[in-house]
């Protein structure tokens, strides 16, 4: 654990709480397994000592900003999380003045689950292009170290190279396991509709049945609703209790959006998401 980094976070938190600048600090604390991390909400000075930061801090805390719209909150943010902040700023879901962003020059996080800490960096960290958050009020951590980044979308390409029947079998098998717990949706910074399409009763798009056809509609449409918006934190994949490889779905759309529209979500708080705009003269393969 980087104790200097942790001290910096705690000092910032203390100052912000003491001065009354923020109502609370959203950060990380040690989980009940004594090994991994979990989100922490610190409202009192005495609790500041609970804040930590290490390679188990995988959670994207930006999702909690949507509940706290009325109050000014401080938040600990990794580079990937900062893309989520840009996304929500761009889509007018949060206001910049209500945030005090403690940015961390994150060296990457490992795969974690209850009582388990992996040894290698998560796939999304290995392909991450950011060394520090894109938006912050105060930066903590050391000078970012450049490490060789892996080539992105290799697993997507591997899937693309399979036969169409193999792909069909693969995805049907994956969607069959879904139990519609909606953890993927709840943990996603981009999923904030007050009424999700899957819960709409009129028109009834999906319904309550937990069965392969309904699961397929759920999975495909959620991925598509995130096309051009997903910032690639892969939290959805981590939280899925039945290990559906959601990043394989989201990254496919991310790759195609980049190819067709030269666009990646969350790089700036003011951008034109590709599905909300158009170019009159573009050729996308439907003309003859």
């Amino acid at each position, binding site marked *: 654990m980087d104790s200097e980094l942790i001290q910096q976070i705690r000092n910032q938190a203390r100052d912000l709480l003491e001065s009354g600048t923020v109502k609370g600090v959203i950060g990380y604390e040690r989980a009940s397994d004594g090994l991994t991390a979990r989100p922490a909400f610190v409202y009192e000075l005495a609790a500041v000592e609970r804040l930590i930061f290490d390679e188990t801090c995988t959670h994207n805390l930006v999702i909690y900003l949507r509940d706290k719209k009325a109050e000014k909150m401080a938040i600990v943010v990794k580079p990937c999380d900062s893309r989520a902040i840009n996304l929500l700023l761009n889509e007018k879901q949060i206001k910049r003045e209500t945030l005090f962003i403690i940015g961390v020059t994150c060296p990457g996080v490992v795969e974690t689950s209850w009582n388990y800490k992996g040894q290698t960096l998560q796939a999304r960290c290995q392909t991450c292009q950011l060394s520090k958050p894109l938006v912050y009020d105060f930066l903590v951590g050391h000078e970012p170290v450049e490490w060789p980044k892996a080539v992105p979308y290799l697993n997507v390409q591997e*899937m*693309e190279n399979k036969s*169409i*029947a*193999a*792909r*069909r*079998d*693969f*995805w*049907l098998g994956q969607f069959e396991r879904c139990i519609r717990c909606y953890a993927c949706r709840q943990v996603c910074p981009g999923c904030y509709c007050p009424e999700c*399409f899957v819960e709409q009763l009129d028109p009834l*798009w999906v319904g309550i049945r937990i069965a392969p*056809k309904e699961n*397929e*509609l759920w999975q*495909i*449409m959620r*991925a*598509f609703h995130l*096309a051009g918006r997903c910032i690639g934190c892969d939290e959805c994949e981590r939280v899925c209790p039945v290990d559906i490889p959601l990043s394989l779905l989201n990254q*496919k*759309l991310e790759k*195609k*959006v980049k190819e*067709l*529209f030269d666009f990646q979500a969350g790089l700036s708080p003011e951008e034109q998401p*590709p*599905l909300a705009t*158009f*170019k*009159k003269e*573009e050729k*996308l*393969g*439907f*003309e003859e």
Partner: protein
Amino acid sequence: MNSGYSPKIIGFLCNWCSYAGADMAGTSRMSYEPNIRIIRVPCSGRVDPILLLKCFQQGADGVLVSGCHPGDCHYNEGNYHARRKFALLRDFLDYLGIGKERLRVEWCSASEGQRFVDKVSSFTKEMAELGPRSES
């Protein structure tokens, strides 16, 4: 058609251009394969991807979406948005194992009855050639 297989094709036609074009084909007594079942929508941009997915799930072998030519949309920009949406969706459906050939997007104006017939005909033949979807 080979061995009696007759593909089910669902067509989403925009009211102002493509549906009118299909009407024109009808009134001009042009004949084309009867496999297509037409659903009239106000604009190609109204066609939600979930509608297409449901068509495939309920047994459609191919889906056609036809709208006004880009630049001529009755609602100004609906088909521009449709164009972007379906460019992504077609590639995504292919990735999911539903072949990209099964989603066809065309632009057909109200006066292009013959064009409508040609497009539907070629699509139907292509779907017959491709065969039924493996799980139907």
